[in-house]
């Protein structure tokens, strides 16, 4: 009897990085079906349906404009409408936020399904990131509509620049950051539930540190001692870059951008390793 040709082995010992891309590929249909499920079922039995995707960033932008720009007088750059500035920040921030909060409860939310059948667990957070892409697309569309409105009707002086070509990369970085952090948190919440509480308000705090409602340059000018907090925050870099490529405001530094890309890849890999280690036996501790 030949023992060499086993298809796979279920064992107590695991390699540190045990990614089976072939298997993930075999389950690609499942990923698409999960995406479809998320999209189809999210707004079932609501009247406004997907309009909620639109309403939420619009209202947030209006409030931000009122509070931060009209009340607190935060400048948004020459000739850039504050509303557009905020909408740009929120659109890019939202995608990261949705990916993070969506994936951070992967294990606890799906313990029913995970406790009964096996499929590569990473399919689940991946499907969340993909289905959020649609949400992001709709919000981007809204942004573009208002963009065109401000440019052609109001005659606002905003211009996209060549960096716009980096948009797909920006989206990827946001997805990797959200997914990476989400998988890390999800893995850690299986045993210690404290993190769930942290995520809720941690994300909110993070938004204030991510240059969503102010330009980084203004922060550096006002709070120079703390500027490193925002400067080395990869999400702040992403948000700034997004505004830079679309509105022509804010700074763009290639070195910072590369730092954000590298950071996102590292956090994604770390998340993946921890996630893979957790999925083997999380069902016993969850």
């Amino acid at each position, binding site marked *: *009897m030949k023992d060499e040709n*086993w*298809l796979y082995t*279920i064992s*107590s010992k695991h390699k540190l990085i045990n990614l089976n891309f072939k298997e993930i590929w075999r389950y690609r249909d*499942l990923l698409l079906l999960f995406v479809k499920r998320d999209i*189809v079922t999210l707004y079932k039995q609501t009247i406004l349906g997907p309009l909620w995707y639109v309403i939420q960033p619009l209202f947030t932008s209006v409030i931000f404009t009122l509070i931060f720009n009209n009340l607190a007088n935060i400048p948004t750059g020459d000739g850039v409408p504050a509303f557009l500035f905020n909408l740009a920040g929120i659109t890019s921030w939202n995608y990261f936020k949705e990916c993070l909060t969506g994936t951070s409860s992967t294990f606890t939310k799906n313990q029913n399904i995970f406790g*009964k059948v*096996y499929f590569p667990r990473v399919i689940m957070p991946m499907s969340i990131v993909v289905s959020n892409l649609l949400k992001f697309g709709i919000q981007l569309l809204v942004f573009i509509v208002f963009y065109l409105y401000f440019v052609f009707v109001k005659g606002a002086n905003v211009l996209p620049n060549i960096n716009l070509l980096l948009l797909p990369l920006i989206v990827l970085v946001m997805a990797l950051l959200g997914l990476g952090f989400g998988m890390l948190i999800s893995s850690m919440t299986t045993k210690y539930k404290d993190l769930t509480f942290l995520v809720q308000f941690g994300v909110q705090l993070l938004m204030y540190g991510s240059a969503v409602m102010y330009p980084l340059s203004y922060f550096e000018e006002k709070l120079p001692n703390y500027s490193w907090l925002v400067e080395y925050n990869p999400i702040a870099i992403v948000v700034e870059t997004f505004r830079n490529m679309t509105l022509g405001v804010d700074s763009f530094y290639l070195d910072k951008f590369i730092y954000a890309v590298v950071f996102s890849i590292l956090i994604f890999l770390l998340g993946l390793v921890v996630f893979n280690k957790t999925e083997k*036996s999380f069902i016993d501790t969850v």
Partner: protein
Amino acid sequence: MSEIILKAENISKQYRLGLIGTGTISHDLNRWWSKVRGKDDPFLKVGEINDRSTKGESDYVWALRDINFEVKRGEVLGIIGKNGAGKSTLLKILSRVTSPTTGEIKTKGRIASLLEVGTGFHPEMTGRENIYLNGAILGMTKAEIRSKIDEIIEFSGCERYIDTPVKRYSSGMRVRLAFAVAAHLEPDILIIDEVLAVGDAEFQKKAIGKMQDISKGDGRTVLFVSHNMAAVKSLCSRGILMDQGKVVFEGDVNECINFYGSRKTSINKFAHKKKTHILDNVRILDIKILNQYGEKITTVFSGNKIVFKFKILKENFKDPIDLGIGFYSSDDTPQFHCSTEVIKKPYVLDSDEFLSTLIIEKWPLIEGDFYINVYIRSRQKLLDYIKEAMWIECEKGDYFNTGVVPSWRVGFYCDYDWK
């Protein structure tokens, strides 16, 4: 045919009892520290045998301990054992829901499990959408499902509802649909756990039929876990008997089932384990099974007189009480039932403790192992109930007192006459 498709080597699984919370961090740190120093996990040494009913010393128990077995291609293996014997844990490890603490399982085929049907149904989606989703969760590709969808819908018998959200389904329909999806899986190794306990009689028949097709017709390898001995007998060729996390018997399925029956050691010994006391002052203290000469017996022959003596406690309880006893075969099929209620002879005695006697002049059952469930009731209210209180072995006897032992092997004997 004799190629080994699955091989389990020294599989063990340790669980931690009690709440996970306080002390978890300290155990984790302890574990990590031993790992850093290159030593074994300290908590692997402290595990105890997993016996649910006794209080143990340690927080850690072994749900599985050194399980070894092999499965050949095309074989239908039955896994039987009491509740808590480790069957489900083993299946969880096989289906990769959790990983073993030690040991490894090697396989040459894809494993799909049918642990609990209906996993991942989304209530807001239609039956058809759910078939796709559920099929994909179980490991099918979209194309595979598409080629089988008509078959699945037909098998489920939910055609009319197929484009209605699943939340409008009755629970029976949900199960039918889920089973239909699962039954059309085509993995190399299929794991089935207790799914036959669902649905109405008609659907169960259909389900067992489908299982038989899968295992016999298609030559698929199947691991089947069930308490339904009749189903195990009809589906499986080989059996594994598990007890307290260990494999105690491996071999031909009939021998395995017989061995399981004989291991119910409490033959003519009053078992206290499965009691449900409602009151402390009214309960069954002891039961004895005697023959016509008043001797304790473990085996009764059909046609012989059998006497059940119950010792009953009835302190400070004035109401009349009723006793009942149900006879069951080892595959849990009810046989017959004797109670004081139906013959209207309740016990009205006023003593604190008394003996009650049930006499069956001619034992009607033919052969096999049987157990009894006993209870006390008063005014239609249950006061004490003991499941599987005692086991009794039964053998064919000279029922008709003619010296001729009938060849009929199952069912009942009864008195009759020909004119």
